C-alpha cells in the first residue's frame, strides 16, 4: 500500500528531472515506445538471438536518463510470475527437440526463454516511458493523437486523486489495525462500512473539488502547461530508433555478427 504510493511519487519525481530523454517531446516517446512494443512481440515464438539487439533501446535510454536500475528491475521481477506461470507450460506441451552445439533442448524451453525475454523488454520499455515523461505530459501527448478530451481529463484527475485517497485510506487502515490488532485484513462485517465510508468521503470530496474548480474558472479543460512543438532532436530520436527496430526485425543481427566472427576465426 505505502509502497505503491511511494512508487507513484518516485516515478513522478523521476519524470521531473532534466536530462536529454526527459526533454524529448512526449509524443515522440509515446510513439517510439508503442512501435518498440509492437516490434518486440511480433517476433516468432522460438526467436531468441534476433530479439537480443532490441535490448539496446532500454539500455541506452536508461543510461541517458540516468535512472537507477534497482527499482525498475524490481518492478520487472514483480510482473514475471504471471508470464512464467503461463509460459512454463510451453516445455510441458511442446516436446519437439532441437540440437544446439551438441546438446539437445526442447523447443518448449526455447519458446519459454523467448517469452521471458519479451516480457523483460516490454515491461522495461513501459516503465521507462513513464519514468522519463510523467503522467501530465503523457496526457498532452494523448490529446495530440486524438484521444477525447473527457478521457484525458478523467485520467489526469484519477491520477491526481490517487495520492490523496491513498493517504486517506492509509490513515483508515492504520486506525482499523489499531482497533483490531492481529487481524490480517478487513473482516466480513466491516466490508461494506469500511470501503463504503471511504467512498462517501470521496464523493463529498469530489463535490468540494468541483466547486473549487468552478471558482477558479474551470471550463472543462485541463491545462497541462507547456505546449512544446516537435523539434529536430525529437524527430532524430524517433526516426533513428524506429529505423533500428526495423533493421533488427528484418535481419538477425547477432547471427550475422556471429557468422562473421566464426567465419573469420575459421579461416
Amino acid at each position, binding site marked *: 500500500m505505502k509502497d505503491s504510493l511511494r512508487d507513484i511519487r518516485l516515478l513522478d519525481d523521476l519524470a521531473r528531472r532534466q536530462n536529454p530523454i526527459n526533454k524529448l517531446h512526449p509524443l515522440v516517446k509515446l510513439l517510439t515506445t508503442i512501435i518498440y*512494443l*509492437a516490434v518486440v*512481440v*511480433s*517476433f*516468432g515464438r*522460438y*526467436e531468441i*538471438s534476433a530479439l537480443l*539487439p532490441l535490448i539496446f533501446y532500454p539500455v*541506452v535510454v536508461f*543510461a541517458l536518463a540516468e535512472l537507477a536500475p534497482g527499482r525498475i528491475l524490481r*518492478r520487472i521481477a514483480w510482473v514475471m510470475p*504471471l508470464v512464467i506461470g503461463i509460459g512454463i*507450460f510451453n516445455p510441458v506441451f511442446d*516436446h*519437439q527437440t532441437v*540440437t*544446439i*552445439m*551438441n546438446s539437445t533442448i526442447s523447443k518448449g524451453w526455447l519458446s519459454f526463454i523467448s*517469452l*521471458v525475454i519479451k516480457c523483460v523488454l*516490454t515491461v522495461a520499455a*513501459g516503465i521507462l*516511458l*513513464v519514468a522519463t515523461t510523467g503522467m501530465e505530459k503523457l496526457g498532452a501527448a494523448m490529446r495530440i493523437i486524438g484521444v477525447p478530451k*473527457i*478521457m484525458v481529463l478523467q485520467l489526469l484527475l*484519477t*491520477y*491526481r*486523486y*490517487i495520492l*490523496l*485517497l491513498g493517504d*486517506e*485510506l492509509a490513515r483508515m487502515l492504520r486506525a482499523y489495525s489499531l482497533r483490531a490488532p492481529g*487481524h490480517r*485484513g*478487513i*473482516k*466480513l462485517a466491516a466490508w*461494506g462500512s469500511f470501503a*463504503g*465510508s*471511504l467512498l462517501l468521503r*470521496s*464523493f463529498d470530496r469530489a463535490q468540494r*473539488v*468541483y466547486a473549487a474548480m468552478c471558482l477558479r474558472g474551470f471550463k472543462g479543460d485541463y491545462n497541462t502547461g507547456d505546449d512544446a512543438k516537435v523539434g529536430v532532436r525529437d524527430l532524430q530520436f524517433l526516426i533513428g530508433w524506429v529505423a533500428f527496430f526495423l533493421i533488427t*526485425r*528484418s*535481419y*538477425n543481427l*547477432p547471427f550475422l*555478427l*556471429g*557468422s562473421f*566472427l566464426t567465419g573469420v576465426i575459421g579461416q
Partner: protein
Amino acid sequence: MHMADALISPAVGGTMLAVTAGLAAYSAKKITNEMDEKKIPLMGVMGAFVFASQMINFTIPATGSSGHLGGGLLLAILLGPYAGFLTMTSILLIQALFFADGGLLAYGCNVFNLGFCSCFVSYPFIYRWFTRQGLTSRKILWGATASGIVGLQLGAFSVVAETLASGKTELPFSTFVLLMQPIHLGIGLVEGLVTAAIVTYVWRARPEILEKAAIGGALGDRSIKKFLTGLAIGVVLIGGALSWFASTSPDGLEWSMERTAGTTEIEATDGIHQLFADLQSRTAFMPDYGFKAPAGASSEEAISEETASSWPAVDAGTSAAGLVGGSLTLVLAALIGYLVSLSKKKGSKAAA
C-alpha cells in the same frame, strides 16, 4: 487477470485496442450528451477510490485468505455503464504505466476483459434485471453477486481466447479454460460480495447517490437494441480477425481445429492432442515451424530469411553463430550502457 504484453501478438493487441478505442469514444460521446460536466471530477475521484480500494484486503471468512476489489461493477453501479467504463479505462492505464500491471499493447485486451465485461454485459443485463423493481438489500446482494461472477467468467474466458489466438502458449484450449474459469469463479464471487456490501452501505447511508446513477446510466429499450447490434458486429469483426490470425499460426490452427471438432469431453481432446504431439515429435524439424521473416529480393535479405527460419533447426554452425553473436550483442549493450552513463557522470562532474 491483467495480461502482459509478452503474452499477446500485435494482431490481437491491435484488434482489441481498436475495439476499446471505439467503445471509449462511444462512451465519451454518450457522457458529453447526457450528463453535466459535474460528473467528470466525480469520475476522477471514483477512479482514485477504486484504485485505493484495490489495496484493501478483505478477509474471506473460514479460508484464511483475502480478496480484492476489481471495481468495474461497482463503478457501473455508482456512475452508470458509460462513465463507469471510462473510469475503468483510466484505472487500467495507470496500472499499466505505473505498476506494469498489464502492458500497453495488451491495454485493449485488459480494458475489454475487465471493463467491458462488467460495465456493458453483467451490469446492464444482470444487475439491472435483479434490481428492475427497486432496490432492497437482498436484490443488491443477488444482483451484484451474479454480475460479479458472470463478469469475471467472461473476462477470464476472454483472457484464454486472446492468449491462444496470439499463439504464445502451448497450453491446449481445454486445459487453459479448466485452469482459468474455476479460479475466477472464486474471484468473481468475492468481487460480487464486496461490491454488494459497499453498494448496500451507500444505499442505506445516502440513497440519492444510487438513484441519480440509475437515472443517468439507464439503458432504455432502444439503446439495448442498438447495443446488441453493436455487440454482434463487434463479435463478428473480432472473430474474423482472430480466425484470420489463427490460420497463419500453427497453434492457433490447432486450437480452432479443436474448437470446430466440437470437443465436449476433455479426455478425448487431451487424447487427440497427445496424438498430435506424438506425431509432431516424431516428425520434428519440419520446415514449416520456422518463423517467416519479411520477404525481400536482395541476397542479404534472403540470407536473413534463411537464418531466421533455421534458428530452431539442427545446424551446428548456425547455432554456434547465433550463440556467439547473441552473447556478443548482450556484452555490447552492457558496454554501451556503461559508457553512456560514465560519460554522463563525467559531464556532470565537469559542469559542477
